[in-house]
């Protein structure tokens, strides 16, 4: 069994042609920043090399004007994280798309189980995933309004939790 360092280095080598930037936030993690058009080739490189498995797809909302709660941010980006795990090593492919053009290619042709994560992205963040096998309503209730994306920072639940922080 190769060491953690070797596993991560092998991933770095695989992804070198596509990456904008590399980062090592923790000993067992490698963050790879990608441009949108390099997402598919990068995932393909990982799958072809049989590097670990896709653990999850995470969306993170990054509004441009942070702060000002309750004020819908007009501009901002959605960052999408594709986390691959192999043993203790985690490689995260990070792609950013702006609100105005929140479109990503589907990686389902390469990794069928990615469909869950991609649907979550569509419903919770309003990212359009092109080519994903199913686009019907999935997570949210049938009565949920169209075009409201609960995990965006601009969405504020009607009955908001107001518990005071303990310790004052």
């Amino acid at each position: 069994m190769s060491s953690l360092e070797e596993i991560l280095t092998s991933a770095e080598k695989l992804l070198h042609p596509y990456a904008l930037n590399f980062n090592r936030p923790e000993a067992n993690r490698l963050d790879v920043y990608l441009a949108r058009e390099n997402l598919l080739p990068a995932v393909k490189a990982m799958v072809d090399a049989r590097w670990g498995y896709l653990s999850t797809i995470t969306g993170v909302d990054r509004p441009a004007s942070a702060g000002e709660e309750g004020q819908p941010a007009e501009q901002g980006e959605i960052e999408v994280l594709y986390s691959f795990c192999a043993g203790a090593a985690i490689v995260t492919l990070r792609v950013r798309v702006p609100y105005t053009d929140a479109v990503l290619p589907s990686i389902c042709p390469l990794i069928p189980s990615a469909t869950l994560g991609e649907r979550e992205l569509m419903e919770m963040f309003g990212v359009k995933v092109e080519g994903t096998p199913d686009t019907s309503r999935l997570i949210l209730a049938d009565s949920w309004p169209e075009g409201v994306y609960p995990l965006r920072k601009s969405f504020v639940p009607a009955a908001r939790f107001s518990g005071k922080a303990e310790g004052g």
Partner: protein
Amino acid sequence: MGLEVSKPWQQVLDKIRTWARVNSPWAIHFNSGSCNGCDIEILATLTPRYDVERFGIKLQGSPRHADVLICTGPVSLQAKDRLLRIYWQMPEPKFVIAVGSCGLSGGVFHGCYNIVHGIDEVLPVDVFVPGCPPRPEGIIYGVAVLLEALKSGKRPERTMTVEVPAELGVPKVEVSQ
């Protein structure tokens, strides 16, 4: 049934009905979005240590056979319609027991966007069993309180009525002579 009986007979029949209902209530269980904690405790009441069947209580799969709806969870938006549908399908008289803190008020999930914060927002609840989750003894006690109320002939007070939509109501079957 539309059976016409004289008054004394009616009283006897009512007594028999109450006796039967108190001694063998059939319950249906529905999870409307809870964390499963209450549900495994409800299931635990069936198993040998707690064994509610000794009280004649039976967990029943079909709402059409059930007297008591034991419901858990803060009622997610998606489960709300199904919960109402189960309630409509139950024959009268029917009773609802809300189990767990989140079934009472939303509990720890207060402020989450996809819930309606409590079963009593949707259905008329007869007995509330607090706890996160309540112990099996607590759930059994909740049922016992309901049965006690039934025994004395008192119906728990209803503060709300649930309208059954016309298309789901009692079908009008024309009986040919």
